[in-house]
């Protein structure tokens, strides 16, 4: 697999992960990275350098909007929330990934690997 394809898969999975998390509630960058790591058992891991370009891009496309507000500890954090455009992206993205995994499973039996 070329680096380019790997990067696209990583990007696509990152978008789905972020949209899914933010569909539950608004979160700031560190929380997003932490929850993705925890909830995927470390399989998906975002560093600062990989997370924020994605967030900024999704914000630019109008899927997310961000606002500064204090977190529970009283510190200012930039919270990201899903816009209606972002919410509309979620279902087709899920479907796209489901089809992708079905196709890969049919080909390589990855779900039983």
């Amino acid at each position, binding site marked *: 697999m070329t680096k380019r394809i790997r990067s696209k898969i990583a990007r696509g999975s990152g978008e789905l992960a972020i949209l899914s998390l933010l569909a539950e509630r608004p979160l*700031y*960058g560190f929380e997003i990275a*932490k929850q993705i790591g925890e909830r995927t058992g470390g399989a998906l891991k975002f*560093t*600062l*350098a990989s997370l924020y370009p994605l967030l*900024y891009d999704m914000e630019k496309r109008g899927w997310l909007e961000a606002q*500064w507000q204090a977190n529970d500890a009283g*510190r*200012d954090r930039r919270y990201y929330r899903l816009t209606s455009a972002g919410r509309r992206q979620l279902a087709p993205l899920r479907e796209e990934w489901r089809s992708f995994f079905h196709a890969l499973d049919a080909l390589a039996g990855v779900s039983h690997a």
Partner: protein
Amino acid sequence: MPDWKKIVSKHLGLKHIHEEAVCELAAHLEESYENHRSRGLTEANALAETLQELENCDVLAKAIRRRNSEEGLMNYRTRWLWLPGMIMMLLASLSLMVFVVTGFRETLIWRAGPIVLWFYGPWLASLMIVGAAGGFLSKRERASIRTRLAVVAPPALLIAICMCIFSDLSALISHLNMILNRFWWFYLTIAVANWLVVPGSALLLGAAPFLWAPQRQA
């Protein structure tokens, strides 16, 4: 505790106009560092782990620069400075107009020919509310204290200029010789007090609670 903002700015080669991104990333690193420390890592190891997050950050730096150039410096200043400033100017002018139209008169404190010192209580009180509104708008955007002060200044300056021109102009013209020859400095002092110092102080007083509220920080 390391200066995360400095670390982010240096690693990513970011400048003042990227302040929002620097604050956001610095906050991320700070929390990452604290997370490592809470897991029992030494300060040095926690710092090393945290700094690993900044590896391969070329794409991130480019994304931030592109975002800022697209948003534009003007947009950045608009939210922090011009919009609150313009709203304050509008409110200050409107409130004066309303008081004049509804018949509230200024209180004459002292007069010597064309030189008048007066006190416009209701308007000055309304200016404190206007100042508070401007301070709040600027604070909401977490602007720096310098910017918040700059937000309060334009209405005071504009009011001073407008009033000096429109209100005192007739007095100035009719007594031009006397003013120019004998009392120009006194006339100027009174005009500055009437239209700049007193309204400006009222605006500042209203904005004061918001001037020292915390800036955006990690």
